């Protein structure tokens, strides 16, 4: 049946069906028109089917096992809700060190620490002081000093090795009178030369 035919015969449309279904009212036309009654029943069934399909979709997504898990989680959360909050204590050692130390002991520890720090500091300061003095002496050594010292150095002798050695021995002879007797007893290089 077309829309025009329905309008002509005073039949009900979808909009009227929706209104009737929502209000739960009974239109007088439905009792007299079998075609509209059939269409309305189909319409109502369609709405009911949507509801049952939507329900089935949700029930499939949440099977019994999933609901059991959910219930267990709920009860676990309720249990934590009822349990009084627990205060976690700080570790014992840290409390002893901070809280239960006598003032005398604290002073002693502070004095010992101060002493150790003082000795260490003194050593560091001394060393740095001497290092500073050495540095100052080095800074006095100028270029003119260097030149004077260089001129004081004489060139090496060109004599041959033995003569040079004898001269050295002579030069190193005892200048002290008391040791001369002892020196005489000692064999010398010059004596060796004489034997030759």
């Amino acid at each position, binding site marked *: 049946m077309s829309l025009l035919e329905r309008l002509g015969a005073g039949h009900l449309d979808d909009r009227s069906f*929706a209104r009737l279904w929502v209000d739960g009212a009974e239109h007088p036309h439905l009792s007299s028109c079998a075609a509209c009654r059939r269409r309305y029943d189909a319409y109502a069934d369609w*709405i009911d089917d949507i509801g049952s*399909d939507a*329900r089935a979709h949700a*029930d499939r997504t949440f099977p019994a096992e999933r609901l059991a898990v*959910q219930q267990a989680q709920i009860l676990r959360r309720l249990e934590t809700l009822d349990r009084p909050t627990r205060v976690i204590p700080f570790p014992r050692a840290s409390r002893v060190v901070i809280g239960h130390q006598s003032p005398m002991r604290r002073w002693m520890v502070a004095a010992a620490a101060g002493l150790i720090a003082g000795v260490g500091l003194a050593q560091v300061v001394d060393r740095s002081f001497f290092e500073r003095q050495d540095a100052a002496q080095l800074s006095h050594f100028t270029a003119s000093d260097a030149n004077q010292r260089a001129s004081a150095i004489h060139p090496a002798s060109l004599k041959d090795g033995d003569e040079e050695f004898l001269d050295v021995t002579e030069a190193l002879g005892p200048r002290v009178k008391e040791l001369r007797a002892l020196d005489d007893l000692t064999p010398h290089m010059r004596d060796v030369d004489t034997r030759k």
Partner: protein
Amino acid sequence: MSGTSAALAATREADASTASAVKSLQAEGRHAEARDRFAELVGRHQRRATRIAYHYVRDAAEADEAVQDAFVKAYSHLATFREELPFDVWFTRILINGCLDRIKARKRRERWQVPLASTGWGGTDGTAERDITERLPSSGQSPEDAVLTRERRRQIAEALAKLPDRQRAVFVLSQVEGCTSREVSALTGLNESTVRVHLFRAIRKLRTLLAPGTAAAARDQKGKRRVTS
């Protein structure tokens, strides 16, 4: 219908006595017993609550969390529950408020996030969430029937997802959960006539969205969009 009403009345009576028992046990400090009694209420309302939350937030994990939160909140605020109000109405109101908060928070989050290609149930691209139960073999249905049923459910889920929040909420409560307009009004805080208007609009919109031609056209358009992209 009268049988359903009688069952509902019996459930409500049982709820009221359980709730008052839990309250007194909580007051006496017998928490373990209070929890055990409250578990009865959880068992009675869990499935319905999960369905409502799922249709509200359209995400299974988030619905799960919303239901848990609602039960925990109900337990901790049971002292404020008045026995003259049905427990399911009081509890569902807590649940719906929680779901609305979650939806608000999600919208706020999504403002700063790039939308994913598929965002679960009734996502932006219209893909339905595929859970493991959909892949399990169903009993007594031929594969063709199973495919058709799945396809129909997917279309309904998509259509429901396209409804405005209020219309969807009213439709789910009245049609999926079988609440009367007065109960929906009590649950949502909306006027009873406003509930009826939302329900009427929801049905009209669903009729348009689920018309055979509309669904096929939407599928074709989606296919074309995929080809061009």
